């Protein structure tokens, strides 16, 4: 029996027939899935053993009241709930949506609720995100993703070996989304907020040219 191996011809056939795109699709999807899986967790833990995103930020020449005011405006902008302000402290509740992603197509697979705490002193402030609770989503009868339960599971309570991979990805998402939110928060507190004047709409006058 004679086997003839013509690699160029195979690539040509695959490209012509659309197999190439399929191959590319599965390769990228595989890469994305592989990147999504992570065996170890980098997120920091606090004294209680709970996951936390904690930062202390120097903000020289800015008083406590102004820092607090800016923090409150950020929380209002991001629609945080249960916002409580004391002398130098602000508490609020927020949530991240966790998306299950393959290539560029995704759907929400759950949400992570958390508490944000902010404390200010003259010239510096600190804030932290903690008490992460995961609530899985499920598809309802109308095809929408909704919370499967009202009781969240602490992110520290691993669900065991069978679901460890998914759980690690949730912790990973908590770390990344916390860092992204923290960056926005710090940026908001660093910049003097100005009310934007409405920009005049550009008008094209086609008659006079």
């Amino acid at each position, binding site marked *: 029996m004679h086997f003839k191996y013509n690699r160029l011809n195979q690539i040509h056939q695959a490209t012509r*027939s*659309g*197999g190439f*795109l*399929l191959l590319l*699709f599965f390769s990228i999807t595989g890469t994305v899935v592989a990147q999504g899986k992570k065996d170890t967790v980098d997120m920091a833990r606090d004294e209680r053993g709970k996951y936390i995103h904690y930062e202390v930020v120097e903000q020289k020449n800015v008083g406590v009241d102004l820092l607090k005011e800016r923090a409150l405006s950020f929380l209002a902008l991001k629609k945080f709930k249960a916002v409580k302000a004391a002398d130098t402290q602000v508490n609020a509740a927020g949530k991240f949506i966790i998306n*299950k992603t393959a*290539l*560029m*197509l*995704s*759907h*929400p697979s759950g949400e992570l609720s958390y508490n944000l705490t902010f404390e200010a002193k003259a010239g510096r402030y600190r804030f932290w995100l903690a008490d992460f609770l995961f609530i899985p989503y*499920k*598809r*309802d*009868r*109308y*095809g*929408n*993703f909704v919370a499967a*339960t*009202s*009781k*969240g*599971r602490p992110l520290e*309570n691993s*669900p*065991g070996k*069978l*679901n460890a*991979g*998914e759980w690690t990805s949730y912790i990973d998402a908590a770390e990344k989304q916390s860092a992204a939110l923290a960056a926005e928060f710090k940026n908001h507190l660093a910049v003097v907020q100005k009310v934007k004047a409405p920009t005049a709409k550009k008008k094209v006058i086609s008659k006079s040219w």
Partner: protein
Amino acid sequence: MKLKSFFTFSALTMSAATYAQETTTSSTPLQISGSVDTYYKYDFSKRANIGTSFAEDQNSISLGMIDLALKKTTGKASFVGELSFGPRGQYGSVPNGNGEAANADNSFHIQNLYTSYAFTDKFSMTAGYMGTFIGYEVIAPTGNFNYSTSYLFTNGPFQNAGIKANYVFSPKLALMVGLFDDWNVYKDLNGVSHFGAQLTVSPVEGWTAYLNMLTGRSAGAPGTGSIYDLTTAYQVTEKVKIGLNAADYSVSNDNGGYSGAALYLQNAFTPGFSLGVRGEYFKSKDIPDFDGSSVTSVTVSGNFKAGGLTFIPEVRFDNGNTTRFVKNNLDPTKSASQFSLAAVYAF
């Protein structure tokens, strides 16, 4: 070759679509989700006996369906399109194909096909073909804890085509009213004939109750059918959940109907294993010259979860007040029991 061209075209279309989405700030990415299910069932009378939807085949490793759902939101407008292929969708759900019996063997089934517009955060309108708002259980296996279905589910509506308005008064109270076609049809032969409403009440966190009603005269029906339904679920703790479904359906002019109730108790012993029991009482109503019968059913199901996969071992015992089942030798009997093992994957 045609199939490959189709895949190529699909890949290019999807790429273009996702690129377009990135440039539009008010739209969300196209959501793709779905499920696949398969099962084995063994009825101890050695023949299919218990009237459950979907898990019907005796002593056979059988298919459920592959269910594919798309959802897209652009600004205030959104659509959902959900199609299913396989016995659960094609033969278990109604209607099949164009509704003609001759075409029933070669069809897919539409689970949802509707568009929606949210005028405000509180008020939205939806039109199309939707999963019914009546009842506790649903067609998609990912939406149910038990794999076999209740009598209330099997006898109630599966889906409703129509137009509905939804208003959210507060996080604890919402109201839906709508005009609908006959049950389970893509088009209504006697005009838009049904009126339906749903009051949603959430008294405390974790507890939601739906008070539903649907009334109207279907094409060719001897009377007006009205169903009143209570569906409620309470997540007591992280581990314990209680559900209840009670319904009454009557067709006017003594044309029968049914009533019944099902209680659902579930406990998550570990994050990967839950056990649940469903107890149900179901009674068909009397019609002239024919007495209705009743049946009591107890179903115990386990849910083993590993990622997107759920294994559902299940035993079920049904007992009627009349000889509605059969034994091995085909003698009539009042009771029946079955075991099933299902695998459901959600993505």
